[in-house]
C-alpha cells in the first residue's frame, strides 16, 4: 500500500516544520499567510451562477469493483460468494442501498449518507471500448485489432486509455485536457496528484499544485516579501533572462516554459494552497466537513488532504479563475494481487482500508461542497485502470480484468439508482472474455464505455455534442447511446 507509516509522516512533518521555521526566519514570513487570508476573506463567497467543477479521483492499480458494490439478491449473491470464496464480503455486513438490490462494502460508511440523500450513483461494468462489443465480436477480433483497446489488462496502457479517452496507449493528450481546451476553461486541469495524463493537451500541461495544505508553493526568492531586497530583485531579473524563450533544445524550451508559468501561477495561488485546517484563511464550512479527518492542522489521509485542497480552490474559485474548473486527485495501492482481505476477515485488510480512505474523504468533500452552497455545482467521479478478476488467485487476491464499477457523487447526480448493466456473474458467461478453462477468471467485457461516461460528465459540465465528438473521438461509435443519464 502506498501509505506513509505514522513514523514516516512524523519525520516528514518534522522536516517541513524545520523548513518553514527557517524560511520565515530567513525571509520574514515568505509564506504570506496574511495574503492568503485576504484571498478568501469573509464568509459569503460570490461565485458565478453557472460555475461548475468536475473532480476526477483516479484509483491507481485497478479497484476491485466486484467487492465495492455487491448484489444482494440471493441468486446473484450466492454466485458471488461461491466464486469469491474467502474474499466474499458477508451479506449481513453490506451497507444497504435502498432502492436497488445492491450493497456497499462496509468500509464505505462515509458514503452511506450520500446514498441516503440520493446523491451517489454507481455505474456498472464500465471500461475501455472502441465500440459496443459482444463476446462473439470480442472473440472474433484478432489481438492486433484496432477495434479493441490496445494492451488490455496492462496497468500503464489501461490507465492511459482511461485518462485519454482512447483505445491506444500512444495517445498523448487526456480527455480532461482536451475538454478544457474545447471549452476554453481559464485554467488547465488542476491536479493535486502530480502530472497526470488526464490533464495534458498537446500544448499545455496540467496545473499541478501541492497535495498537502501548508506545503510551499512558490520560489522563495520571488515572493513579494523577498522582492523588497535588492539582491533578490537582481536574482529574479537573472532568472527571467535565463528562462527566456529561445532555449537550445526542445526539452529545455519546454522546461523553461513550465517554469515561467509556475512563477506566475504561484504568485496567484501560493497563499491559497498553503492554508491549513484551522489556520489563517481556513473556512469553517470546509473544516467542519473534514473534521473527522483532521488531526491538529493535518489531514489524516492522502486523499483527504487532496480533496481538502480542492475544496479550498473551489471555494475560492474566483481567485483561481474561470467558471469551469476541472480537478484531479488520486489514490494508489489498488493493485490487490495479494492479501486483498485479511485472512478469515474479508471486511478488513488492504482493500477495506483503501475503500475507507475513499469513502471517508469523498463523503467529507461532498459535505463541504454542500455546506458551501456549491453541492449542485460540483460532481466527483472515479476512474481506475480496470476491474479485477471475479475468480481470486491463491494469494488471497485478484488479478487484472476489464469492466468495472465506478462511483459518481454530487448534488447534481441522479443518485439512489444505478447506471449501466451489472455483469452476469457467470465464469465463461456472456460478459466473460473467457471460453477455455485456462481463462475462466471472470474478466468482464464492458457494456458501457469510458467515452459514454465522460460524455455524461462533460455534457453536464457544458460541452455541446459537437465538442463531445472532438474530445471523445470514439463516442460516435456508440450511436445515440451517448450519455448514461446519471446527471
Amino acid at each position: 500500500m502506498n501509505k506513509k507509516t505514522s513514523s514516516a509522516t512524523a519525520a516528514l512533518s518534522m522536516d517541513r516544520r524545520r523548513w518553514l521555521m527557517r524560511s520565515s526566519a530567513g525571509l520574514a514570513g515568505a509564506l504570506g499567510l496574511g495574503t492568503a487570508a485576504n484571498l478568501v476573506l469573509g464568509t459569503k463567497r460570490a461565485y458565478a451562477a453557472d460555475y461548475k467543477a468536475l473532480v476526477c479521483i483516479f484509483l491507481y492499480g485497478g479497484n476491485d469493483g466486484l467487492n465495492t458494490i455487491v448484489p444482494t439478491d440471493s441468486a446473484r449473491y450466492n454466485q458471488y460468494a461461491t466464486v469469491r470464496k474467502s474474499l466474499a464480503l458477508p451479506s449481513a455486513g453490506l451497507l444497504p442501498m435502498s432502492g436497488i438490490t445492491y450493497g456497499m462494502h462496509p468500509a464505505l460508511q462515509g458514503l452511506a449518507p450520500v446514498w441516503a440523500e440520493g446523491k451517489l450513483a454507481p455505474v456498472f461494468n464500465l471500461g475501455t471500448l472502441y465500440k459496443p462489443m459482444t463476446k462473439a465480436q470480442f472473440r472474433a477480433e484478432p489481438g492486433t485489432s484496432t477495434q479493441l483497446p490496445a494492451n488490455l489488462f496492462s496497468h500503464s496502457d489501461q490507465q492511459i486509455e482511461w485518462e485519454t479517452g482512447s483505445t491506444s496507449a500512444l495517445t498523448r493528450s487526456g480527455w480532461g485536457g482536451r475538454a478544457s481546451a474545447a471549452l476554453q476553461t481559464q485554467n488547465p486541469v488542476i491536479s493535486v496528484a502530480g502530472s497526470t495524463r488526464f490533464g495534458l493537451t498537446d500544448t499545455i500541461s496540467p496545473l499541478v499544485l501541492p497535495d498537502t495544505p501548508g506545503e510551499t508553493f512558490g520560489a522563495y526568492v520571488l515572493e513579494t516579501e523577498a522582492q523588497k531586497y535588492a539582491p533578490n530583485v537582481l536574482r529574479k531579473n537573472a532568472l527571467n533572462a535565463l528562462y527566456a524563450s529561445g532555449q537550445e533544445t526542445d526539452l529545455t524550451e519546454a522546461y523553461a516554459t513550465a517554469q515561467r508559468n509556475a512563477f506566475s501561477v504561484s504568485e496567484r495561488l501560493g497563499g491559497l494552497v498553503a492554508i491549513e485546517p484551522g489556520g489563517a484563511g481556513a473556512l469553517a464550512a470546509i473544516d467542519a466537513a473534514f473534521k473527522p479527518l483532521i488531526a491538529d492542522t493535518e489531514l489524516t489521509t492522502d486523499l483527504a488532504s487532496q480533496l481538502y485542497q480542492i475544496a479550498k480552490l473551489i471555494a475560492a474559485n474566483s481567485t483561481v479563475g474561470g467558471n469551469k474548473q476541472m480537478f484531479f486527485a488520486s489514490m494508489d495501492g489498488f493493485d490487490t494481487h495479494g492479501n486483498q482481505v485479511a485472512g478469515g476477515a474479508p471486511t478488513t485488510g488492504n482493500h477495506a482500508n483503501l475503500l475507507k480512505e475513499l469513502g471517508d474523504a469523498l463523503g467529507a468533500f461532498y459535505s463541504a461542497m454542500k455546506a458551501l452552497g456549491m453541492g449542485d455545482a460540483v460532481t466527483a467521479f472515479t476512474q481506475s485502470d480496470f476491474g479485477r478478476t471475479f475468480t481470486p488467485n491463491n494469494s488471497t487476491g485478484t488479478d487484472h480484468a476489464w469492466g468495472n464499477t465506478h462511483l459518481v457523487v454530487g448534488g447534481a447526480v441522479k443518485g439512489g439508482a444505478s447506471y449501466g448493466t451489472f455483469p452476469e456473474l457467470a465464469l465463461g458467461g456472456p460478459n466473460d472474455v473467457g471460453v477455455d478453462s485456462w481463462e475462466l477468471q471472470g474478466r468482464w467485457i464492458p457494456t458501457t464505455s469510458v467515452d459514454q461516461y465522460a460524455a455524461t460528465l462533460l455534457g453536464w459540465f457544458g460541452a455541446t455534442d459537437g465538442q463531445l465528438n472532438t474530445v471523445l473521438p470514439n463516442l460516435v461509435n456508440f450511436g445515440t447511446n451517448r450519455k448514461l443519464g446519471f446527471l
Partner: protein
Amino acid sequence: MSQRDAVRLADQASFGPTEALVTSIRSKGASTWVADQMVLKTSSYTSGKGGEIHQFTGSGDFCTGKGDDCWRDYYSTEPLLWDFYRNAVNQPDQLRQRVAFALQQIVVINNLDVSGNYGFRNYYNVLLRESLGNYRQVLKKVIQSPVMGDFLNNANNDKDAPNENFARELLQLFSIGTCELNTNGTLKGGACMPTYTNETVRSYAYALTGWTYPAGGATSYGCYPTGANCRYYGGANDGDMVPVAKYHDTTVRPLLNGYTVAAGQTAPQALETVLDSVITHPNTAPFIGKQLIQHLVSSNPSAAYVGRVAAAFTSGKYQSFGTGQRGDLAATVAAVLLDAEARGDSVTRTGGKLREPVQMFTGVLRGLNGATDGDALSWWWGETMREHVFRPPSVFNFYPPDYPVAGTTLVGPTFGIHNANTALARLNFLTYLLDWGGTPATDSSVPSPTGTLVNLTAFTTDAADANVLVDRISMLALGNTLPTAARTEVVKAVSWWTSSTDAANWKVNRVKAAAYLIYGSPHYQVQR
C-alpha cells in the same frame, strides 16, 4: 577531449561533474575513462539491520520496546538511502552506481508494499554487482529475489490458481514490453502489435510457480501455505528463493519466441527456459537498451542510436568492451556512452533529458564540494520532488518512460514528475542549500551524520571578479559559458555583493548567487 564533452560524459555516467572528475575525463578520453570506471572496486550498501523482523516469535509488535528508530532501522530503506547518497557523492565507481540506479528504476521494487531493509540491501547490492555484467543474470537474480517475490506475489505462487502479477510485469516492464519492436526500438508496422496475450501471461505465471522464501524465517503463528517457508529475505545466495515442488506446475507451457517448458520440469529448470525465452526475444535488446539511453543520456534517442545499442546488447560486444555474450551490460553501457549521439560538444534540438531530482541533488553537492548523509534528501526533498529513493509508488517507477512533453512532439520521462510545484521546488532546494546553509550535521538524525552541505571555499578565490567566477561555475556545471544576454544578468546579480555591501561575506555571497543561478538555470536542469 573538450570541457563541454567531458562535462556531458560526467552528467551521463556519474552523479555529477566535479572539477577533478572533468579534468580526469579530459585527460583520459571517453573510452579509457569508461573502461577504467568499469574495473573500480564496487561500492556497496552496508547500513541497516538483519532479518530479526522476520524471525520474531514473541507476542505483539516486533518494535515494541525497541525505541523510536526501530521502524526506520529495521523495516524502512532509509539506512540504504544514506548509503546511496554517500556513495553517489563520494565513491569513485560512479559509472557502476549510475547504471545500477538506472536498473533499479527498470526492475523496480519499493519500500511501500514490502519492508525489511536487509532484503533490499541484498537486492541493491546484487544490482551494483551485476550492473556491468549480463542482463540475463540480472533477471535471474530478480526472479529469485524474495523481496521481488513478496512485492509482486511470486513467492509461494501456487499452481492451483497462480497469481499473474509477477509474470505480467516480467514481460511488460523487465524484458520485452507490450508492443513488437524493430531492432531500432521503433514500433513494428508503426502501431502497437501486442507481444503477448493473457494466455501467455498465464503460461509464464504457471512456469514460475513453485518458489518460496529461503529457510530462516519464523513467526509465532506458523508458516503458510503448508510446506512453504516463512517470509524471510536473508541467508545464502543473496537470500534467493528456493524451489518448493508441491506448488510448482509441471504441465507443458508454451512460452514466447519458440520456447516451451517441457512437462515435468522442476522450478529451476523452468526458470532457465523462461530466461532463455525473454533474453533472446528480439524486443529485449531495443527495449532495455533504449531505457538505458533514456536514463543516462537522452529521452528521445534516434532510432539509429537505439539500434546501435541494441546491437551491442545482442552481440555482447562493443569495441573492446564486453564478453561476447548476449545481454552483456558492459558492452551495452559502453555503446550508450561512446555513441556519436552521446559525444561531442553539441546536442540536437531533440536531445538531452530533464535531470532527475536525484541527479540534481547529487550534481550540486558534488560540483560544489559538498557532503550529504542523505537525511535531508529522503522524507523532505525526496518527497517534495517525487523521487524518494527506494520508494517509487509502484513497479512502474517514479515516472513512465513515455510521458509526453506538452508543447513538443517528444517524450520526457522525468517530466512525469515535473510540474509547477516541483519546478519551484528545484529552485527552493538551491535556496535551502546555498542561502540557508543546508542541513548542518548537528541537525541530522542519522548515525555518523555529515549533514547536507556545500563547501564554497574553493570558489571564493575567484570571487573578486564576477565574470571569472560565473564562467568558472558555468564551465563546471554546463561545460560552457552562459548565453551572452543571460550571462550579463547573472554577472549583474553576482556583482551586487561587494566589500561595501557586506564586508565579511561578499565573496562567498557572490559564489552563492552565481551557483544558485547557474544550477537553477534551464541549461543545467535539462542535461544536454
